Structure formats: structure tokens, C-alpha cells
């Protein structure tokens, strides 16, 4: 099955977390997240964002159930969570988490108290229960109403009305709460939302019908009231379902920046300390392959630090005593001692996150289409109902009963049933189509915004490129040399080493057995093979004699064996295979395409030329990126931001709409509206196309709802809207709107051919493993 989350580590002394830094985050204390209900029993919730198919569920549950202490293990696929119960000490949590991590899943502890997950679940349960009650009431009241409409005699009719009231009134009281609450909240701040006309119509219909029932009248609207609630709750539930779907998997990730760090005291004692207790001036030890937990100045050790997530720079930087390092970057090759200059809320990372939040707030001002419709609709409807009442009062010479009855009929028939379904149905269908195409959508408003974009801004490292180096022209390199290099490189976590190891594995070359390998941080690897010293690393370190045109920190490695000529390995940051096509397609659709990067100008210019992007900026800070995107927005443009790094997060949040690859940092994924899976860039085009079609369908649905009102309202004003007419009109319009939304599904290929990930070693897109399974 194509869904194995990661390839297995290569032979040899691989680091505990796997060769590509997956698995559990180093130093996470899982026992601290475990909870206990009874003594001797533990419970732990883990987030595993990579779960995406039946095989993953099975592998995790089988592995956990095989553990002797585990009593229950359950994967929740919708929320990408694993719940484990075990019998024994809480400290077993680390071992249990390790079991899942050993399968190759990237896991984090899930902090149930802080995450919004529990709240979402409660709300979804409330809506479902309300929906069930409304459905039950609607069915039974309709049963009684049909016999009334077919001409039940007076006594029977009165009894049926009473029965209907008995069913409908409690049901409305229960199922209507979500609407009443929201309407009340809106009225309290003196504004109108869609729930105000809904609540008014339902309550007035009930009051009017009760009056009729008591006075043995002929017409009661109980069926209309509950049916209305039923349809609206369907829309409400769909809306909620979509909002929580991707949200739950993505949102909780951000809370997990470093929680603790290893503090080294003056007498060299090392203690694991929570991040909140770390103060400026302390010295922190950072092991290789660990994320830096603080900002600070290196006061001991040498290492290479991967800055790509922070700056977009594709080459790791060598740091030594006196260099500044930042939280969130990855220490690669050697242990570092860092004197803390800032931690917690004062680091650069925290700055970036607060910038991101500020940008998101400004985006919250966006008014959704449905709310825009409600602002026009609600006053109009209430105005018409009031005029109807006054008009009939005058025309019938003071028959207030008939006037009020007609006015209520107007309110019921105009109640935005179809309008309430028009948007959520389209969006849930669209998000389903997107999901199968490998794109996760965070909320419906983002879909509306994506359809409005007119400028595209792309990040370079990790977005247009894959953010991992690839050997240039591997064919010219001798197999024996490659095997030797792989023999050295498999001992290192440096991205270039990993690229060599991966290439050797891909070509089925067994690495030579190089012994006594040592890594010199910032320089390279050395070892002994066949009695000869071999070196792999920087050119001026391996073969000092051969230094020629050194243009600084290039992506290259040099292999030196004995006294022979050095073998050079040159690398480039691998472009996503379809990036040129996507860029030209975006241009063809008429969008100006720009590129922003934190990388060096030379590398950026080269890539821009290759892709035909005229507008590009290099060496930009996260602030500059975010300001630029915000300024484009305020000049009236609608920017689609595509990016992945921590440095893109503020810009992603500032963009009118934003997309990030699933390989992005947590911050990037949290800030983006859409997240796509796989190694190709095509999902960006796919998402935009679906968003445009969804918008068209929403507009059509609004037109259909308006058309329905044009016919129904005059009937109601003239007093022809009997309960039967109201029931038919309401259900027909809802069905038409829903049916129209489903068309989105019809013309979309079941598997979007572009989105199916075929790239090596990558995660397959959602649609792929359904067919593979």
C-alpha cells in the first residue's frame, strides 16, 4: 500500500528519530500529558496528522494492542487522533508513544484541555440532537397535517391540531435553541443576522397556530415551523461539520512549540526544565537533531543549523561560538551550548506568531456571502410582513386577526430555508471534492475568498521547490564512489548527506562499510575504508589543495579518498516537477505571479528566470513579506499567498487566501486556509478551480432562492399561503438548492489526475489510496 508514512531508516547507526527528523519530538515528556481516572490506569491522546487511510488505522491499532499493558487503543480518523488506555504506571506513556513513533508516524501529545476540540465535539453533538428531534417532530406532525389537509372533520381536526401542538412546541423549544441564542446575541448588539427572521418566523408561527388551535380554527402552521427548523439545522450541521474537519487536525499543532529544554548549570549538571522557567542568561544544551528551544548566543560547540524554515535559506549555516541562533531552527550535526537571550514569549518565533495573529484579526473583517445576503434580506422581509399586516388591516376594515395571520404567513414563507442551505451545502460538497483531490479546507469563508483572488505570491524554498537538495547529474558519478560516499553519509543528518543516502538507496547501491566515522560539525565526515582515510564534506576541508573558484556557500560536497582526485557532488534544491506548468497556467488565467524569498538573491534570481517570474524579491524578512502582502491587499488587490515556512506564516495569514503544502511548518499550516498533500503544486490550480465553481453555484442558489420568493411572496401577501402551500414551497425550494449544489460533484473527475501524488517517497493524495486499498 502506498500509504506508509515514511521510509524505514537506512541500515547502520541511525539516530533514534529516523533519518528525516520524524517520529516523536525529542525530549517530549508524554507522561506529563497522560491522565488517569482510576489508580493504576492511564489514558493518553496523541495527535498523528499523517493518518490518512485504512492501513494506517490498522497498523497503529495492531501495534498498540500488541503492547502488553495497553487495554484499549482507538484511532479517530476524522480528528487524526489516537486514544490509548493502559493498565499500569503513567510513566508508560513514553513507551506507548514510542510504539506509534516507531511505525514512522509523526506524533505529538494532544492537550485536550487547551485545544478547542472538546468544544467542537459538544457543539456538533448538540446540533445533531436538535436535528434528530426536529426530524422526529417534522415527520409526525406532517403525518397529522396530511390528514387535516385531506379534509378531516371538525372534531378530528381539533384533536389533530392539539396533538401537533403537543409534539411541535417542545420540539421547537429544544431544536430551535441554536437559532434563538444566535438571534438574541445579534439583537443585543443591535444588529441583524439570518437567525433573527428565522427565530421570529418560527416563534410567531407557533404562537399563531396555538391561538388557532385554542379557538378551533382551521389553519395551523405547526408542520411548517418544525420542518423549517429541520431544514435549517441540516444546513447548520453541514456548516459546522466542515469547519471542524480540517480545523481539528491542524489547529492543535501550533500549541506545541518547545515545552522544555536541557539546562546546564555552572557545575555542569544537566536538568530538563520547562520552558516557562527558563530565563535569559541560562545555558541550554541542544543535541543534534533537536529543535532549538530558545533564542540565544552559542557559547560552546560547533554545528550546522538548518534555517530553511526561519529564513527560507536552503543551505544549512555553520554556527560556532558567538553566533546568534533562533528558536524553531533545527540543530543538525553537533551539540551546541546556547546562552539564552530570550525564551517563551520574547523570541523571534513568538514575534512571528503574534504577527500572524494580528494579520488574522484583520482578515476576520471579511463578510461572508451568506451574511451579506442576510443584511439585505432580513430588513426586507420584516418590512414586507409589516406592510402586509398594515395593508390588510386597512383593506379589511380592522380585521386584525386576518391581517396578523397573513403577515405571519409571509414571514413563514419567506423564511430563508433555501437561503440557509444555499451556502453550506455547496461548501460541504466542495470540501469533499477538494479532500478527495488531496486538499484540506479550513473553513467555508476561505473558499469564497479563494474565488476572488487576482494576484498570486509564491514562496521559494519548500513551496516552488521541495526544500530538499537533489544531486545534479547523478549519472556521471561512479557507482563505487557513490557507495563509498553513502557509507559515510548514512552516519549524518545533514540534508546533503541525506540526499546522498537516499540516492544510493534509490539506485539499490549497498553503501561501503566505512568504519570509525566521525562528524566534524560545519566541515564534514571522515572515516576509514579498506585501510584508507576517506573524507566527505566541504571542498576546502577535504582537499585543501584543490580549492579553485569558490563562490561561497554552494550546495556541494567533496569526496576525497587517499591521494586520488576529489569527486565533487553538486546539489540543487529540487523544483516541484510541475512548478513551471503551474506558474504558466496561473499567468494564463490572468494573475500576476510574484515570488518572495528569504534566500540569497543569486539562488532566487536563477529560479525566477527558470520559471519565467518577472517580479521577485530575495532575502526578505517575515515582516517584510507580511507587510508587502498586506499592502497589496490594501491597494485593492486580492492576494493568494502560497508558502510553507515559519517565515511565511505572517504573510499567509495576511493573504486574502492562502495555501500551504502539508510539509510546511506547524505555523505555516495553521496560518494557511488550505493545505495540500503530495509533492506536486497542481492542487493550487485545482483548489482555485473548485473555489470558482463553488462560488458560481452559491450565486445560482441565491438566484433560485430569490426566484422562489418572487413567486411565493405575492401569494402569501394576497393570503393564499395556506399551510399546505407553505409546506410544499419550502421543501421544493430546499431540494432544488441541494440538488444544484450536488452538481459540483458531477462534473469533477473522481480522481483529480493532477493531485494524485506519484512522487517518490511522498505521501499519496487522499484519492490515491482509496483505489489502492
Amino acid at each position, binding site marked *: 500500500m502506498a500509504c506508509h508514512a515514511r521510509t524505514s531508516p537506512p541500515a547502520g547507526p541511525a539516530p533514534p528519530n529516523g533519518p528525516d527528523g520524524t517520529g516523536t519530538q525529542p525530549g517530549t515528556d508524554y507522561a506529563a500529558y497522560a491522565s488517569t481516572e482510576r489508580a493504576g490506569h492511564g489514558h493518553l491522546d496523541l495527535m498523528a496528522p499523517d493518518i490518512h487511510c485504512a492501513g494506517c488505522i490498522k497498523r497503529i491499532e495492531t501495534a498498540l494492542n500488541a503492547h502488553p499493558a495497553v487495554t*484499549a487503543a482507538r484511532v479517530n*480518523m*476524522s480528528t487524526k487522533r489516537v486514544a490509548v488506555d493502559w493498565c499500569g504506571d503513567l510513566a508508560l506513556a513514553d513507551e506507548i508513544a514510542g510504539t506509534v513513533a516507531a511505525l514512522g508516524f509523526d506524533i505529538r501529545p494532544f492537550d485536550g484541555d487547551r485545544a478547542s476540540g472538546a468544544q467542537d465535539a459538544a457543539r456538533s453533538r448538540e446540533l445533531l*440532537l436538535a436535528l*434528530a428531534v426536529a426530524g*422526529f417532530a417534522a415527520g*409526525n406532525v406532517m*403525518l397529522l397535517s396530511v390528514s387535516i389537509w385531506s379534509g378531516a372533520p371538525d372534531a378530528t381536526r381539533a384533536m389533530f391540531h392539539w396533538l401537533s401542538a403537543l409534539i411541535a412546541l417542545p420540539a421547537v423549544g429544544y431544536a430551535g435553541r441554536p437559532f434563538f441564542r444566535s438571534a438574541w446575541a445579534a439583537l443585543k448588539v443591535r444588529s441583524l443576522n439570518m437567525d433573527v427572521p428565522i427565530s421570529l418566523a418560527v416563534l410567531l408561527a407557533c404562537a399563531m397556530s396555538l391561538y388557532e388551535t385554542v379557538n378551533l380554527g382551521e389553519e395551523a402552521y405547526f408542520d411548517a415551523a418544525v420542518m423549517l427548523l429541520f431544514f435549517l439545522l441540516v444546513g447548520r450541521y453541514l456548516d459546522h461539520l466542515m469547519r471542524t474537519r480540517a480545523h481539528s487536525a491542524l489547529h492543535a499543532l501550533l500549541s506545541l512549540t518547545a515545552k522544555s529544554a536541557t539546562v546546564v548549570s555552572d557545575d555542569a549538571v544537566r536538568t530538563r526544565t520547562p520552558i516557562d522557567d527558563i530565563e535569559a542568561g541560562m545555558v541550554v544544551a541542544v543535541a543534534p537533531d533537536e529543535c532549538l528551544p530558545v533564542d540565544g548566543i552559542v557559547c560552546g560547540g560547533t554545528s550546522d543549523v538548518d534555517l530553511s524554515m526561519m529564513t527560507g535559506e536552503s543551505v544549512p549555516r555553520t554556527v560556532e561560538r558567538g553566533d546568534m541562533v533562533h528558536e524553531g531552527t533545527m540543530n543538525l550535526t553537533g551539540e551546541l551550548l546556547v546562552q539564552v537571550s530570550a525564551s517563551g514569549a520574547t523570541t523571534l518565533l513568538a514575534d512571528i506568531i503574534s504577527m500572524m495573529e494580528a494579520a488574522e484579526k484583520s482578515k476576520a473583517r471579511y463578510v461572508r456571502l451568506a451574511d451579506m445576503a442576510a443584511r439585505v434580506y432580513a430588513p426586507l422581509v420584516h418590512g414586507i410582513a409589516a406592510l402586509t399586516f398594515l395593508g390588510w388591516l386597512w383593506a379589511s376594515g380592522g380585521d386584525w386577526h386576518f391581517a396578523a395571520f397573513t403577515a405571519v404567513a409571509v414571514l413563514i414563507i419567506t423564511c430563508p430555508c433555501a437561503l440557509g442551505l444555499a451556502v453550506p451545502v455547496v461548501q460541504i460538497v466542495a470540501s469533499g471534492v477538494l479532500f478527495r483531490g488531496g486538499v484540506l479546507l479550513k473553513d467555508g469563508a476561505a473558499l469564497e475568498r479563494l474565488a476572488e483572488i487576482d494576484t498570486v505570491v509564491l514562496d521559494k524554498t519548500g513551496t516552488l521547490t521541495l526544500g530538499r537538495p537533489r544531486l545534479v547529474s547523478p549519472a556521471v558519478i561512479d557507482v563505487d564512489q557513490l557507495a563509498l560516499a553513502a557509507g559515510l553519509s548514512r552516519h549524518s543528518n545533514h540534508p546533503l548527506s541525506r540526499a546522498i543516502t537516499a540516492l544510493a538507496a534509490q539506485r539499490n547501491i549497498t553503501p561501503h562499510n566505512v568504519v570509525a566515522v566521525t562528524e566534524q560539525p560545519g566541515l564534514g565526515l571522515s572515516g576509514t575504508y579498506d585501510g584508507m582515510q576517506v573524507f566527505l564534506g566541504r571542498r576546502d576541508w577535504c582537499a585543501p589543495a584543490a580549492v579553485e573558484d569558490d563562490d561561497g556557500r554552494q550546495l556541494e560536497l567533496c569526496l576525497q579518498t587517499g591521494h586520488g582526485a576529489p569527486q565533487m557532488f553538486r546539489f540543487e534544491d529540487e523544483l516541484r516537477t510541475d512548478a513551471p506548468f503551474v506558474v504558466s497556467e496561473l499567468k494564463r488565467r490572468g494573475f500576476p505571479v510574484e515570488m518572495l524569498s528569504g534566500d540569497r538573491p543569486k539562488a532566487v534570481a536563477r529560479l525566477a528566470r527558470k520559471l519565467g517570474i518577472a517580479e521577485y524579491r530575495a532575502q526578505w524578512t517575515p515582516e517584510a513579506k507580511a507587510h508587502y502582502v498586506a499592502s497589496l491587499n490594501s491597494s485593492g488587490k486580492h492576494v493568494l499567498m502560497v508558502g510553507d515556512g515559519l517565515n511565511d506564516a505572517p504573510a499567509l495569514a495576511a493573504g486574502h487566501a492562502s495555501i500551504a503544502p502539508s510539509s510546511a511548518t506547524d505555523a505555516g499550516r495553521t496560518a494557511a486556509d488550505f493545505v495540500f498533500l503530495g509533492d506536486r503544486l497542481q492542487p493550487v490550480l485545482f483548489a482555485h478551480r473548485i473555489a470558482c465553481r463553488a462560488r458560481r453555484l452559491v450565486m445560482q442558489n441565491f438566484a433560485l432562492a430569490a426566484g422562489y420568493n418572487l413567486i411565493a411572496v405575492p401569494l402569501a401577501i394576497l393570503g393564499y399561503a395556506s399551510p399546505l402551500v407553505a409546506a410544499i414551497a419550502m421543501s421544493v425550494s430546499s431540494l432544488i438548492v441541494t440538488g444544484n449544489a450536488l452538481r459540483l460533484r458531477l462534473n469533477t473527475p473522481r480522481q483529480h489526475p493532477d493531485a494524485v501524488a506519484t512522487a517518490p517517497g511522498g505521501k499519496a493524495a487522499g484519492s490515491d489510496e482509496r483505489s489502492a486499498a
Partner: protein
Amino acid sequence: MTNLLLLIPVALLLGAIGLGAFVWALRSGQFEDLEGAAMRILNDDDEKPS
């Protein structure tokens, strides 16, 4: 008229049973992982969900 006195309570009771069944399903967590349920049928061996 007399048959109505029997049939209406029967209709309501049947509806109430359906509602009760739904509430039970919701309470016992069967709606908590709709996507996972769709995927689980692909796993061949019938392990009892724990």
C-alpha cells in the same frame, strides 16, 4: 375514530423508538469518527473495536 386512538400512539411510539436509537448511537460515540468508519470496513479481519 377508535382505530385512530390506537394508530396515532403506535405511530408516535415508532418514531420515538427511532429517535431513541439515534440518541443512543450518538451517546455511544458512533458519530465521532465518520471518516474512520468508512475506512475501517477495508480492514479484513474482524477485530472487535475496543
